[in-house]
């Protein structure tokens, strides 16, 4: 069994309700950019240097208790599909997956992954299902300390952690929440919300991060500034805004349900009907319909305990996941057919959509 197959098969935080899963916030993520003192950054290092850096980092990471019985994946040794699976799971970035000299060290439960030789030597990532900013931060902090104990990290007293790009220097911290905002999207408020967040120093991106569309009304909200603010201040600032966005989302949902009445329930019921009957399902159509099912679970129109299944389908309905599950390369029609079959099977014993209780 390849390690990526292992990752797909394992029960984990985001797809199997191992973490406390919630309405609106799908997941919380912390990323820390770190570099080795005295070594050229990956984008400037020569191939043999990159290899030496990767070996040094991987060795240090493997020794940490957090990664015991975890996975070590070298990008140069993986096929295209396996690398795409990792990107779709947010375990590695597109940038890391597109190069040959990168590696990823992933914890057994898939909550921690460290990318080696991405833009920086080390990108520590911790992800938890639901909204758990403090808990996620504490895990990242511990990993950072443990790593700093075995590797000499590039740090300046004045500028903090030194990174390849000036947009990450200082704390090297990117904190983000993956939020599901169908209410604000349906009400047409999303542009306004994005603008307000941008003006106060937060970035709003689509489902797969930078430069991607917001399929399924899922957005990633993160801090931009990494210098001149303490980690504490960065987390507090993001936390305050996420709380506001969640409140606004609930207001929009309640207003919509109240004003639209039967039409609101009809929309959700149609999506369930379509997902249960479709023979060909594109990935963006699946995402948008699944977004309605998640909304239905949050609002009491479907049982809340089904929500984690919707989240799992959002992840596993992505193209590389569909092909990996099928165990073969599929053309676009083949993927749509297979995706429809997986979704039909998963939803076959879902109860009917009822009027909201929330």
């Amino acid at each position: 069994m390849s390690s990526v197959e292992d990752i797909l098969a394992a029960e984990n935080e985001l797809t199997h309700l191992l973490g406390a899963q919630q309405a609106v916030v799908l997941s919380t993520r912390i990323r820390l950019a770190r570099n080795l003192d005295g070594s050229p950054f990956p984008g400037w290092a020569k191939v043999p240097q990159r290899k030496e850096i990767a070996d040094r980092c991987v060795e240090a990471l493997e020794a940490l208790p957090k990664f015991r019985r975890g996975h070590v994946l070298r990008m140069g040794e993986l096929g295209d599909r396996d690398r795409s699976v990792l990107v779709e799971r947010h375990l590695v970035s597109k940038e890391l997956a597109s190069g040959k000299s990168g590696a990823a060290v992933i914890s057994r439960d898939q909550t921690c992954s460290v990318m080696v030789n991405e833009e920086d030597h080390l990108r520590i990532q911790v992800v938890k299902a639901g909204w758990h900013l403090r808990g996620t931060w504490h895990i990242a902090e511990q990993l950072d300390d443990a790593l700093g104990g075995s590797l000499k990290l590039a740090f300046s007293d004045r500028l903090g952690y030194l990174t390849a790009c000036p947009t990450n220097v200082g704390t090297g911290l990117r904190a983000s929440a993956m939020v599901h905002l169908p209410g604000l999207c349906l009400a047409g408020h999303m542009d306004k919300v994005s603008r307000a967040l941008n003006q106060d120093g937060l970035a709003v991106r689509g489902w797969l991060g930078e430069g991607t569309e917001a399929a399924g009304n899922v957005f990633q909200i993160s801090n931009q500034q990494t210098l001149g603010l303490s980690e504490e201040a960065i987390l507090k600032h993001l936390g305050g805004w996420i709380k506001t966005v969640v409140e606004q989302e609930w207001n929009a949902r309640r207003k919509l349900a109240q004003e639209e009445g039967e039409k609101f329930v009809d929309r959700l019921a149609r999506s369930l009907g379509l997902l249960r009957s479709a023979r060909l399902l594109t990935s963006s159509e699946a995402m948008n319909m699944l977004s309605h099912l998640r909304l239905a679970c949050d609002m009491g129109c479907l049982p809340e305990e089904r929500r984690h299944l919707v989240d799992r389908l959002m992840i596993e309905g992505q193209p590389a996941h569909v092909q990996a599950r099928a165990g073969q390369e599929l053309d676009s029609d083949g993927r749509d057919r297979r995706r429809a079959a997986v979704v039909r099977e998963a939803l076959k014993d879902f109860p009917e959509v009822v009027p909201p209780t929330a």
Partner: protein
Amino acid sequence: MSQPIKCSLCEEAATVHLSQVVHGNVTKVHLCEACAQKGGATDPAVFQLADALTSASPAPTLTCPKCGFTDIDFRKRGRLGCPSCWETFGDVLNGLLLKVQHEAAHVGRVPAGTLPSGQLRRRLDDARREMEKAIAGEDYEAAARLRDEIVGLEKQLTTL
């Protein structure tokens, strides 16, 4: 009629015209249809490339002694060569940091085992100023709290 504008990347007539405004500086890129599609008109790399092509490319004025990275490389890539580059290009980067980060000094965590003397010193300066303010405002409770902090910081700094 005036000459048609040529593509910034090849010699074809440009039909796609892009302007990018970053902190008030306007960069214009003209592309033919083929190059626009190939490069992805929204790809920021197109601007970096066009920037590198259109600006007179003078000899580098700064080179990192540690890794050989130059200021020209930085203009092309927007990324640095190695940790020492932060020192080599310090002046250039300071201005840039104020633009993209609005701040030029770190106030966050330090690596395990590193002594945060710079931060302690900065905090000491701030605390002294705050204490003076508190005394002027007759907030003696706050002033006493700050005095204790200052004593603590001074002790920490002398034992570093």
